[in-house]
């Protein structure tokens, strides 16, 4: 298993290299620059700024300089926030986004798996249609809409929960719901499908023939296989939650990494865009690996393949 993990990390290195390189050049191709403002800046000032941030060098020199520093963990200074480094900003933003992501994931799993399993037990009855219709709505309702809706109902009408910020646990409820709902809906459909497939298997009939109760059949014999698709989805989902949290962070005014990411793109904050992109790539690789490890743990027929196609 250790060998498997090492191989997977080794395979991630070229991926990260390509992502970094592409991003580096693409942001520079994009029109506009980090120091463009509505008011024209004098040529001398612009020249000074460029020298200050190493932008007067040829692009390939900039690239190798950046890569050299990045490998040592220095992602460079932010172009937009003078005096702050990208590494610093990541350190403040990431924990917040991570916390938000974890809560959203817990919520998504709790609701999603419950709804999916309940629906799968009596397919094509009300017990199936009600949670599945709700999950369809959940998938269709984007967080840009769901967030403000939740704020309106629970924040402004009932005044039960604060509408923005990230301080007490009350602050964390609405953002987590907003971010997690879409995933809960998707997980519900995944677990319903997985459970239906497993529940029609011959070994479920064997389990019933043994005299097991319905509960035992579902929990002991069906869940482990039935939730396989969900387990495989957790990795990409966490990565998606982290990189997709900017809408939620914007709606609730949370200073997370998602907002930095989007702001950086608007500001042409080259180093910030690069830093966050690399960070997200690393996370996607990591959580996919985690997901694969969990899948092997859940299914004894899978083994850690160290050759091609790690599954």
């Amino acid at each position, binding site marked *: 298993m250790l060998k498997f993990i090492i191989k997977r990390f080794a395979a991630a290195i070229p991926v990260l290299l390509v992502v970094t390189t592409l991003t580096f050049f693409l942001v520079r191709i994009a029109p506009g620059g980090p120091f463009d403002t509505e008011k024209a800046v004098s040529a001398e000032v612009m020249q000074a700024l460029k020298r200050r941030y190493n932008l007067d060098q040829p692009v390939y020199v900039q690239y190798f300089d950046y890569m050299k520093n990045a490998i040592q963990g220095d992602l460079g200074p932010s172009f937009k926030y003078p005096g702050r480094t990208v590494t610093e900003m990541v350190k403040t933003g990431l924990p917040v986004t991570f916390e938000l992501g974890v809560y959203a994931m817990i919520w998504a799993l709790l609701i999603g798996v419950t709804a999916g399993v309940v629906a799968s037990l009596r397919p094509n009855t009300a017990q199936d249609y009600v949670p599945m219709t709700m999950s369809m709505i959940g998938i269709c309702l984007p967080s840009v809409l769901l967030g403000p809706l939740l704020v309106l109902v629970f924040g402004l009408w009932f005044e039960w929960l604060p509408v923005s910020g990230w301080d007490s646990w009350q602050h964390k409820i609405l953002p987590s719901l907003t971010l997690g709902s879409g995933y809960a809906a998707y997980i519900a459909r995944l677990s319903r499908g997985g459970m239906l497939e497993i529940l029609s*298997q*011959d*070994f479920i*009939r*064997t*389990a*019933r*023939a*043994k*005299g*097991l*109760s319905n509960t*035992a059949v579902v929990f*002991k*014999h069906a869940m*482990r*296989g039935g939730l396989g698709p969900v387990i495989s989805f957790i990795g990409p989902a966490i990565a998606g939650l982290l990189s997709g949290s900017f809408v939620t962070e914007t709606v609730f005014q949370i200073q997370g990494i998602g907002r930095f990411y989007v702001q950086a793109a608007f500001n042409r904050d080259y180093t910030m865009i690069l830093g966050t992109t690399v960070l997200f790539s690393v996370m996607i690789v990591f959580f996919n690996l985690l997901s694969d490890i969990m899948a092997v743990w*859940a*299914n*004894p*027929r899978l083994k850690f393949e160290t050759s091609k196609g790690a599954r």
Partner: protein
Amino acid sequence: MTTSNTPLLKVDDLRTYFHTRNGVVKAVDGISFHVNRGETLGIVGESGSGKSVSSYTLMRLIPTPPGRIESGSAVFDGMDLLKMPEKDLRKVRGNRVTMIFQDPMTCLNPYLRVGEQLMEPLLIHKGLSRDDARKRAIRALEEVGIQGAASRVNHYPHEFSGGMRQRVMIAMALITEPELLIADEPTTALDVTVQAQILDLIKKLQREKGTAVVFITHDLGVISGMADRVLVMYAGRAVETGVTRDVFYHPQHPYTQALIDSIPASHAPGEELFTIKGLPPDVSKPLPGCAFSLRCLHAEEACRSTDARIHELSAGHGSSCLRVHQGSLKVITHRVAHASGQGAHA
């Protein structure tokens, strides 16, 4: 072994229909039979004749919907398995009546260790501690001839071959020492040498433990070696029943006769094999009269309109053939069924 006059299991007028979009499929349409303590009843018939559905019906394992038990009773030791509450049924199912399924490759849970699956019936029915259940599971594996049982209990099903998995299934079905074992084509998915081993194993354990067996198969050779009595099914109905020897040597129904004539081993080498012309009828359409009349070489007008029910001809030997009853048809086999003939498929 206690023998009494009441059979261990008595099934009467069992009907299981499937209500599908294309109509009502009458998979089992009024069959009756009984099984005495310690004896083996063979149920034989071709694919789709309702053999398996009857056995699932007895265990109430028919998926509902679309399946529905329309009528009938299955009295096991004074309790009607078809009408008792689910909660009480669970105490019988998997404990006093157990089942072996056709395909050992798909019938064991791939996510659970074999030991865990073996222990389960003991934990829920016998109230054994996990330690005791584990010891019993190891012994059960030894009884079915699995080498190194003490370490094999920790393996997963995919680490066993097909024949070994069927041994595990048998161990699992017999671990609670049931009074009745329903074996639904337990050797169909296995190759011939493994088949013989599995059959011997079932016979041996049955003898040791005095278990009654309902043995379902389409293999006449297997039936002749295993069963004390036979029930021949066709299109969800019973056509002939009797002591195995009588049915094989003196069949009283043209269908049974045709089945026996189809056994390849009963033909001279190089001779063209006998086949029954036509296909089994569509059981979702009404079938007045005898279900076999459409393919029967001896059928008359009356066969297609008169209800065919099993009538006893001699002690314990019954046939549903109208013409045999009237005495207007004498069924003779052209071939001799070899009791050991393998590969005799219905």
